[in-house]
């Protein structure tokens, strides 16, 4: 990684009586992850049973604690101590788990392939090539359980959201919006550009860890054909007309 060393200038912002939002950076950058993950580890060690939830996102970490065990002042003191000693997780990018998602890229399940191909002289294969060549990092989970926002999208695939969001985006849909990519864990409304579909279960309440992707993961997409997609458990039902 060729990132210059980034040092956070953390600010603590009130997030209600049971939370502090730690703002570590102002801009989205992959190098933020090493700091955010280090702070998550420190909170888990330091807050013990008083820790209720951690919500990492691109530039911030929301720390929710149990007000019966700790007041806001005490939580703030602990966070400031942790921040003073914080070091980024070493070798973060190299040691992050690499997960590969098979994707069936096809216009029947990826209606925006054509729109994206406009930037490649109409060549859909070039869109697929660009999407599968890049390596992505998970910056945040949100919107729905297991929905991972991944950064690292090549500029050539940058595309605005749809003017009118779809009411039903099928589960497994692989999509891009802005400079990010994602896969929809369950059927839901959504305004991202759909390129294909993965047969992988992105969220499974019965599976250890529940979510296939977590913040910090490295992700690659791998193109598979229709048969392989179905063999892996994928549902090839085409997008509904006007969906």
């Amino acid at each position, binding site marked *: 990684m060729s990132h210059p060393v980034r040092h956070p200038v953390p*600010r603590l*912002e*009130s*997030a*209600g*009586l*049971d*939370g502090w*939002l730690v*703002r570590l950076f102002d*801009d*989205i950058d992959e190098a933020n992850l090493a700091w955010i993950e280090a702070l998550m580890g420190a909170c888990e060690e330091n807050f013990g049973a008083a820790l*209720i*939830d*951690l*919500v*990492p*996102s*691109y*530039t*911030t*970490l*929301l720390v*929710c604690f149990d*007000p*019966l065990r700790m*007041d*806001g*002042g005490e939580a703030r003191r602990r966070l400031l101590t942790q921040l003073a000693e914080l070091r980024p997780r070493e070798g973060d990018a190299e040691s992050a788990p690499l997960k590969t998602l098979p994707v069936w890229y096809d216009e029947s399940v990826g209606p925006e392939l054509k729109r994206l191909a406009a930037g490649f002289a109409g060549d859909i294969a070039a869109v697929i090539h660009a999407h599968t060549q890049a390596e992505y990092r998970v910056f*945040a*989970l*949100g*919107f*729905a*359980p*297991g*929905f991972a*926002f991944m950064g690292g999208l090549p500029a050539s695939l940058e595309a605005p959201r749809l003017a009118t969001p779809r009411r039903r985006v099928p589960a497994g849909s692989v999509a891009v919006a802005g400079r990010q990519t994602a896969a929809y864990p*369950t059927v839901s409304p959504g305004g991202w550009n759909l390129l294909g579909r993965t047969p992988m279960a992105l*969220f499974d*309440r019965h599976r250890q860890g*529940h*979510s296939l992707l*977590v*913040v910090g993961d490295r992700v690659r997409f791998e193109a598979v054909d229709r048969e392989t997609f179905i063999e892996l458990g994928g549902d090839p039902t085409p997008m509904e007309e006007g969906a």
Partner: protein
Amino acid sequence: MSELARLRVEQAGPLALLQDAGRFGVRRLGVTQGGPADPHAWAWANRLAGNSWGAAVLEITLGGLTLVAERDAWLALAGADLGATLDGEPLTPWRRFRLGAGQRLAFAMPRVGLRAYLAVPGGFHAEAELGSLACVVREGLGGHRGEGRALAAGDALAFRAAGQPSGPEEAPPAVRPDYAAEPRLALIPGAQIAAFRGSSLFAAFHHPWRVDARADRMGVRLTGPKLECAIDSLVSEGIGLGAVQVPPDGQPIVLLNDRQTIGGYPRLGSLTPLACARLAQCQPGQRLWLRPQGREAAHNDFVRWRREFD
């Protein structure tokens, strides 16, 4: 050993959901907290049923629900007055009562408040998902049959039939909110408060707000003076319960139990948990006020309230 009892659902109404205290520790996976929209009434229902904090209670929104007992049971009701009747006889909330085998408990329509809480000794039984029974329809998690399903006609709710519960039979009048009164909801100012225009801040705390019809367990939109903020949007970040976000249209949205875990609108601050509880009982059109409260005072109020249920 007590025996398994069941309440049969004859008619489900618009929205009846099992709720324990909520789902915690998994918000980093994009899983929201769920739990009772009004924890005050929820906690009292549990207390009147002789339960400690956290047992699963039925949250009944708007009414329209009819339940039949398969055997004699003790139940407790708190929160909104949804025009409940027991075999046709009026039943007021904030008390424990006996439902005999074959008797019919029916909820009509809201008279005051929006959400009633029905508790049984020991709590309703169901399989926990991600550590909680809290029913979140949007996520397909929790509830009486798992998969985030609301109650439907023909369903049954299981619990252990127990003897007369211990503890108070009736909630003292002092703890029963007057849902018809205009609430003054406490708001802890947030980090972006300085980005709002001075006149907007004055208006936020000196003009009344109205609860919009666009209100559910994810959030409640308020209509009133247009709040102007120098910030349009932020990089998405974790949002806590009660966060008051202000999108570019200047009309605030208070984020409740089923909110998305991250969001990117500037925030005026956060309603306290008790203010959220009170807001959850406001019908559309209800007039209310916002009042700033310091973090420490809000903490002390909350801890004093919460210790009541230990």
